[in-house]
């Protein structure tokens, strides 16, 4: 679905830190949403922590750089980091080019799939939330 000019594919889960989650078997893949990648501008580096790191939903666990700004990456689910997108090491800009595809960031083995309930999926809820975000942060 397109919300205010930004792509938010249906079937994904979204958190309020601007990251998405997609269930793949017993794993959850996460990445940055279209609004956030556009606002960040050209992404130059993403910290890729070692696999096995324990993550807590809503807590930051690594950093990301664009325009000499060092931002944070927040976990969409609690669990264990089981894979990182190695391609981002060479080309973090993949997040700008294809944030829901080749620009995926991490795979998590969740402790509890019930945490998905804390994320947004309903288009109406997403739309309402994004409108507020745009009012506060602007558009790009």
């Amino acid at each position: 679905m397109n919300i205010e000019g930004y792509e938010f594919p249906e079937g994904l889960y979204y958190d309020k830190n601007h990251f998405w989650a997609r269930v793949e078997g017993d794993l959850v893949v996460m990445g940055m949403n279209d609004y956030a990648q556009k606002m960040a501008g050209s992404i130059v580096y993403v910290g890729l922590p070692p696999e096995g790191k324990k993550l807590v939903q809503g807590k930051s666990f690594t950093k990301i750089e664009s325009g000499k700004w060092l931002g944070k990456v927040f976990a969409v689910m609690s669990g264990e980091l089981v894979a990182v997108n190695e391609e981002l090491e060479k080309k973090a800009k993949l997040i700008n080019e294809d944030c829901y595809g080749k620009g995926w960031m991490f795979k998590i083995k969740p402790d509890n799939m019930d945490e998905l309930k804390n994320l947004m999926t309903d288009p109406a809820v997403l739309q309402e939330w994004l409108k507020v975000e745009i009012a506060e942060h602007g558009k790009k």
Partner: protein
Amino acid sequence: MLFFDLGKVPGQQSMLVFHALARLGIEALVAVSPKSPLASIGYFQDAQQEVDLQYCREAGIPFMRREVGGGATYLDENQIFYQLIWKKDNPRFPKAIHEIYPWFSEAPVETYRTFGIQAEFRAVNDIITSSGRKIAGEGGGNIGDSMVFVGGILLDFDYQAMSKILKVPDEKFRDKVYKTMEENLTTMKRELGTLPPREEVVNVLKERFEKRVGKLMPASLTPEILEKMKQLESWMTSEEFLLKKTPRIQGGVKIREGVEVFYGLHKAKGGLIRTAEEISEGRIEDITISGDFTFYPKEGLMGLEESLEKTPLKKEKIIERVETFYEEEKVESPGVESEDFAQTILNPIMDSK
């Protein structure tokens, strides 16, 4: 909001302070200069790849990884750093990065103007003079629950010292970095012909920031802040943090937005080709070519360098220029083709993308 006018403090303290304030959630403006020189690297930089650590050790220049983006830089007492820290949910300040930089840069821009330097903000994060030279670089980041915006007023700048702290492949490249910095980076002293008094600059800077952030209340570092700085110091100066491996791939040395110096290296059939190339707005601004290949007549190489100036960074354009030069000047380079030069020039640029 508090105002810490710290004057000149030991090198690393000048950086630790904003990291500590951000973690403590203390909203403040800090004006500070390092008493002794310091090398600072961006969060994602690999220190061993980008800083000449042996030189720094021998020269007694400590280096520090900051929790802010950007590249390696040289800090000393002739730079006044402004560090603004605010809580990320403070509704008075912009939240989007593309708004933060121009919004807060107004204060240093107006400070330069007050002293008669026609400065302006240039996206993404530079302050430039009317002649297009950079006079301040800025950066920022989210630290703890705070946002931090940092930059430096250049009273004067030691170009030579900056070029020495960088890890470079050879001295020709270092020289190119030095010259490109000298051409593209300016200071208050260079613009005004004299070094303005530090206190006057700080006072103007404070006033201009007050227009943006409201009244700034003078404050001193409390035991709590000093304790936090001490805690951070042991972590931020540890080898684990300083020398950590990062995903950053060494590209060129960025001088200002749109201007970068790259090192090219390519093995052709006829030998190794090296370039130190200054790239400005998508074109070769200046280039030095060396290597162990044969070039007849030897003096012709300088002509080739000149003929490549202003060439767009397109493979076919570079090849065309090289071939035209070979035809006109009747030069020869056995085992080194025009395509080899194009590859040498373009490889580091492609790698950096």
